[in-house]
C-alpha cells in the first residue's frame, strides 16, 4: 500500500549542501542518549572473569522496571556463551519418562509474561554486620524487577510424569561450575517458570540465556540461570550453594537452611546516599517489595522515625514485583533523617536494624531486610546512617 508520506520523503531527501540539521541516522538496535550515565557497579570476586556481582543504580532509576542492561548480576563461575540451537533441558530422576527438550520445544508451550522482582539472598549483606555502604546502589543494588516471559514449569512436567515420591527438584545450570540448587516440590507445582524472555526480548546472557528457572519471590540464587538439568528426588542435594552459602547463621551457632523467601522490605532511592538536595520541595521516592505477595502500605518518616506518613503507591501494585512509592516533602534546610518502612499483605511490617539484629544476631548476613535511614545534613548532602 502506498501512503502520501512517500511524497514527503522524496522532498526531504533533497537536503541543501553543508551542515545538516536533520539529526542522526537511525540505529537498528537502540542505545540510550550519550548524555545518560548510570551504570552497574561491578565487583569481581576472583581473578577469573565474570565471577562476582554487579548492582543496579537505583538512585537514578524511574518507575518499577529495571532496564535489562542494568539488571543486577551475581555469577559464581562466569557467564557462559550458549548457542540456543545447542541448548537442551534434561528432566530426569523420579519421573515416569525422562525427557530432553530443545529450546524450540520449550517455546511451543503456551507462553505468558509476568512482572517479578528478583533479589539476591545476599543483598545488603554488609548492612547487618555494620559495613554500611555509601549509596543505595551499593547497599541495595542486588535487586531488580523485570517482565519475564516463559512457560509454566508444571506444564512442561506433564509429559514427564513426576512420581509421588519426589519431594525436591534439583536445578542445575550450564555455567562452568554447574551450579545447582534444590527446590521443594510445592514451589515447582505452584508458580515456578522456565523463562526465556526479559523485558520483551530474549534473556540477556547474564540473566541465564537461553533459559532460566524463575521462582517468584525467592532468593536470586535459587533462580538457576542457563538451566539445563532438572532432577527429581526424594531428598535435597545439600549442594554447596545451599549449605556453605545462602544459609542464615544465628546467634546460637545454628543456621537456618532453605530460607528461600525474600521478606518484605523497602528503601528510599531518592534522596539517598551521595546525593545532594536543596531546600524546598523534594519528592521522596523509593521501592518496596515482598516475596510473600503484595505490598499494601509504605510509610515515610522525615524526623528520624518519630512520626510516619503514608506514601503514595504507584498503581498497579503487582504481587511479587517492586512497588514504586512517592512522598512529597518540603525540606526546611535543617538536618533530617529520612526512612521508609513497608507492610505486606501478610501483615509483615519491615523491622528496624536494631530489631533485626536483636532477633538474628549480626552474622546471618543473608536475607537482610531492615529499614534503611539516610541522613540529610544542613548542607543538603545525603549520607548513610
Amino acid at each position: 500500500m502506498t501512503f502520501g508520506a512517500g511524497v514527503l520523503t522524496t522532498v526531504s531527501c533533497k537536503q541543501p549542501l553543508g551542515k545538516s540539521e536533520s539529526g542522526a541516522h537511525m540505529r537498528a538496535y537502540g542505545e540510550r542518549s550519550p548524555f545518560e550515565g548510570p551504570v552497574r557497579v561491578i565487583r569481581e570476586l576472583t581473578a577469573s572473569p565474570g565471577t562476582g556481582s554487579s548492582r543496579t543504580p537505583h538512585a537514578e532509576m524511574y518507575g518499577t522496571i529495571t532496564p535489562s542492561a542494568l539488571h543486577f548480576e551475581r555469577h559464581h563461575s562466569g557467564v557462559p556463551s550458549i548457542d540456543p540451537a545447542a541448548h537442551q533441558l534434561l528432566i530426569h530422576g523420579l519421573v515416569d519418562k525422562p525427557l530432553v527438550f530443545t529450546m524450540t520445544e520449550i517455546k511451543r508451550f503456551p507462553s505468558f509474561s509476568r512482572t517479578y522482582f528478583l533479589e539476591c539472598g545476599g543483598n545488603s549483606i554488609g548492612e547487618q554486620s555494620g559495613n554500611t555502604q555509601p549509596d543505595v546502589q551499593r547497599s541495595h543494588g542486588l535487586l531488580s524487577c523485570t517482565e519475564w516471559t516463559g512457560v509454566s514449569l508444571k506444564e512442561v512436567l506433564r509429559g514427564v510424569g513426576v512420581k509421588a515420591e519426589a519431594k525436591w527438584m534439583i536445578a542445575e545450570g550450564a555455567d562452568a561450575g554447574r551450579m545447582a540448587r534444590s527446590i521443594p516440590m510445592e514451589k515447582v507445582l505452584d508458580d515456578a517458570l522456565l523463562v526465556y524472555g526479559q523485558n520483551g526480548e530474549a534473556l540477556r546472557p547474564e540473566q541465564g540465556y537461553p533459559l532460566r528457572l524463575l521462582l517468584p519471590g525467592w532468593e536470586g540464587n535459587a533462580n538457576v540461570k542457563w538451566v539445563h538439568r532438572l532432577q527429581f528426588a526424594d531428598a535435597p542435594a545439600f549442594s554447596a550453594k545451599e549449605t556453605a552459602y545462602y544459609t542464615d547463621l544465628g546467634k546460637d551457632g545454628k543456621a537456618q537452611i532453605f530460607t528461600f523467601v525474600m521478606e518484605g522490605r523497602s528503601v528510599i532511592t531518592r534522596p539517598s546516599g551521595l546525593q545532594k538536595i536543596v531546600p524546598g520541595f523534594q519528592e521522596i521516592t523509593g521501592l518496596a517489595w515482598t516475596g510473600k505477595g503484595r505490598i499494601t502500605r509504605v510509610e515515610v518518616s522525615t524526623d528520624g522515625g518519630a512520626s510516619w506518613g503514608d506514601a503514595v503507591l504507584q498503581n498497579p501494585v503487582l504481587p511479587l514485583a517492586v512497588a514504586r512509592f512517592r512522598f512529597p516533602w518540603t525540606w526546611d534546610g535543617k538536618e533530617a533523617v529520612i526512612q521508609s518502612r513497608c507492610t505486606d499483605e501478610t501483615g509483615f511490617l519491615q523491622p528496624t536494624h536494631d530489631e533485626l539484629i536483636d532477633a538474628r544476631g549480626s552474622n546471618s548476613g543473608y536475607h537482610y531486610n531492615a529499614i534503611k535511614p539516610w541522613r540529610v545534613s544542613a548542607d543538603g548532602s545525603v549520607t548513610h546512617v
Partner: protein
Amino acid sequence: MAVSLMFKLVVLGLIGAALWGQGRPATAEEIRRLDLTVFSDGRGLPAGKGTAARGAAVYKEKCAVCHNDKGQGREGQWPTLVGGIGSLATRKPVKTVGSYWPYATTVFDYISRSMPFDHPRSLVADDVYAVTAFVLYLNGLVEQGRELNEKTLPQVKMPNRNGFVPDRRPVVKAER
C-alpha cells in the same frame, strides 16, 4: 501465585489434545553423563577411591594456587577451607568446610562439578576422592591413610552435621 484464570481456561480447553513440546526420551547414557548430583547418603558417588596422602599431591598441583598450601585461602579472593571449628556461636564465626559444611558428600560434589575453578570437571573420580580426603584431613576429620570411596565417604562425621535448622522466619516481629 495462581496462574491466571485465562491461562487455566486455555489449558482446560486443550486437555485431550496433543501435548505441546513433546521432548524426546532421554537415554540412560546421557543421564549418566550429565548427572553430577551426589546425595548426602552417598547416592550418585562414582566408583573410585583416594587417601589424603595421595590427595596432597593432587592438591599441590591443582588447588594450592588459589586455596594456598594448607587450605588457608587467600584474603578477599579465595575461600579458606580449614579451621573455625567451634567458632559458629561466637562474634566472629569462621565458616569453612571443616566448621560449617554438614556433609562430606557435598565436598565431593562441589569439587567434582566446579573445581578446579578454571578447568572444572577435569579431575578423574580417584583424584576427587583424594583431594576430598586431603581437605578433610587438613581439618582433622580423617586420618592421612584413610581410604575414602563411595562407601566410606558418606560415613565421615562432619562437626556441623546437626548445625542446620529449617527456615523459622519471620524471626523479627516488628510492632508499632
